[in-house]
């Protein structure tokens, strides 16, 4: 799936560098992410793909030693501008983590937490509506409709991860970052989440970090290959997997290293 180049990119990264103390974790990364596409970030462990992901919602702010330079924009607004409030930024950029991490609260409260802190619902009925819609979109509603009061931690791993996705989309973000969302799931749960990602593409833009080449090939329209902190190659997923331009990319996707 190709995009008309005239369409402005949702996220534009220009010469992004990240240092953790003395360690140069991300080197001169330029990457555009367009609306309504799924971009997969692949590469061996420690190559900087998660670091890049965490730049987009400024989760790296939590790390004292982290230093980010370069220009990173979301709809043209500089994410690292001093005037940007991270709370508002993170309401626009949702995140799903590697390990399912539901709050030890009820299923309902898990999904309702985001809308509550952002004051998105005026009354209980509206909140109910948001929670139900989010669970429905995450494909979880049918399974949990009768037990919304049970703790989110009582669900199976795959259900927990879909609950986390429901929690993320309840805030109506524009962009969802997924950091290896299926690495702790079995193949069946993984298939469900992948299906879900494909459905979510209609309404959201998704950046997904994955270690599974098949997953990248299945869910993404574009793929970016990182190696040792550098963005080696980025292109349409089909092209990356069938006709990689760079020998490193070729080596990685054919399993010669990684």
């Amino acid at each position, binding site marked *: 799936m190709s995009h008309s180049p005239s369409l402005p990119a949702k996220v534009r990264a220009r010469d992004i560098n990240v240092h953790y103390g003395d360690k140069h974790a991300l080197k001169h990364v330029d990457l555009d992410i367009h609306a309504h596409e799924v971009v997969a970030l692949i590469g061996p462990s420690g190559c900087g793909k998660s670091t890049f992901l965490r730049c987009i919602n400024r*989760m790296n702010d939590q790390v*004292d030693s982290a230093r980010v330079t370069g220009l990173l924009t979301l709809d043209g607004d500089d994410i690292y501008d001093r005037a940007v409030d991270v709370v508002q930024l993170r309401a626009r950029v949702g995140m799903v983590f590697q390990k399912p991490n539901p709050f030890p609260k009820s299923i309902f409260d898990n999904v309702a937490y985001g809308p509550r802190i952002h004051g998105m619902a005026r009354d209980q009925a509206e909140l109910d509506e948001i929670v139900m819609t989010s669970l429905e979109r995450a494909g979880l509603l049918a399974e949990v409709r009768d037990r919304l009061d049970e703790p989110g931690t009582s669900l199976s791993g795959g259900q927990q991860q879909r609950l986390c996705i429901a*929690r993320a989309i309840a805030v109506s973000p524009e962009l969802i970052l997924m950091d290896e969302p299926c690495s702790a799931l079995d193949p069946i749960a993984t298939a469900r989440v992948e299906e879900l990602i494909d459905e979510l593409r209609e309404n959201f833009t998704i950046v997904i970090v994955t270690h599974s080449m098949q997953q990248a090939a299945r869910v993404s329209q574009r793929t970016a290959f990182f190696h040792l902190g550098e963005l080696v190659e980025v292109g349409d997923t089909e092209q990356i997997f069938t006709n990689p331009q760079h020998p490193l990319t070729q080596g990685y996707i054919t399993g010669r290293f990684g």
Partner: protein
Amino acid sequence: MTDNSPTAAAAHRPSLDAAAHVRRRYAAERRFKAIGLGAIFLALGFLAILLWTIVSNGLSAFMQTYIRVDVRFDAESVAGEDYQGAIKSALYARFPAVESRGERRELAALLSSGADTALRRMLTADPSLVGTTKPVWLVASDDVDMAIKGHISRQPGASGNRLTDRQLGWLGELEAAGTVEKRFNTILLSSGDSREPELAGLWGAVVGSVFSLVITLIVSFPLGVATAVYLEEFAPKNRWTALIEVNINNLAAVPSVVFGLLGLAIFLNFLGMPRSAPLVGGLVLALICLPTIIIAGRAALKAVPPSIREAALGLGASRLQVVNDHVLPLAMPGIMTGTILGMAHALGETAPLLMIGMVAFIVDIPASPLDPSAVLPVQVYLWADSPERAFVERTSAAIMALLLFLGAMNLAAILLRKKFERRW
């Protein structure tokens, strides 16, 4: 085939070694378990001995000897509030043969010098008693009480007798007539301290301890939790916070008597707060509790998985929202355990309270945290120091009360924790 046998033997030999190795491993494990069990039983044994000593010494303090006397409430002595006189005349009437002054003094000494308060209370409750003669159970003196309980000798003529032979004779007579009885000791549980063991009670110390601990909790819990949350969740990790952390850890190891001196210097001498008051005691104990609560609080906060913080931050929660909505509720059971540990520590503290004058002899039950008061451990210390034989059992009884208090606090902590955990 012939080639195979040496290989088979070679493969077999290490397995023989392995069997011996496994046996040694099991033996070592059994030894370790035996040592562990031994240590536990040893500890339990000592605990049992300790408890048995305290209970066997202190149990008799919950009974007190009373002597029945027929008291005439004549208008004259009631008007003059001379209840002591009424009691004496009742005793003289009981033993008409006793006439000399010295003998009469010995006879009157069978009853407690505070026995008259019972009469006053009776008359206030029922003024129509004036002019009648009633049998009244009056508190016996501590020596009689000890003799009846068998703690001191009742053998006439034995050396070192606290009771004279004549007193022992009268006591025998009274007992034979069925007018001596051991009853439940309400005085011990309801009055303040006294120089007379039979009139000394724990209630003043219990109230003082409750006041002190409430002050301690009010001061140290919010301060400790706020400090722990700030240091763990908000403070930058730099040289200054490291210095503060080291100092907090050091404070936890400072001898408590030093905190007492600090309290003396700051609260009493500089701020001019009342001496011997639970308010000051509570503040000093709060200083002792704080490092414990902070350290336990930080450990509990650290134990909250970072994934929960990330999840909340990723949703756009502010740091304060992350702490209030997720981290703190999850850490609360751990923080409460730490607090209870600190409070239990504070409950048993004596030395710092001596420094701020809580060792004074206080008869009145404190009505507010500003009144002078004793606390339970100091009461134990005071009674253990008293020469009267009857204070021995009362000391053990006070220790029992202290342990009961401690048990109740721990139980409350466990229940609270359970309740908190269920909500999540």
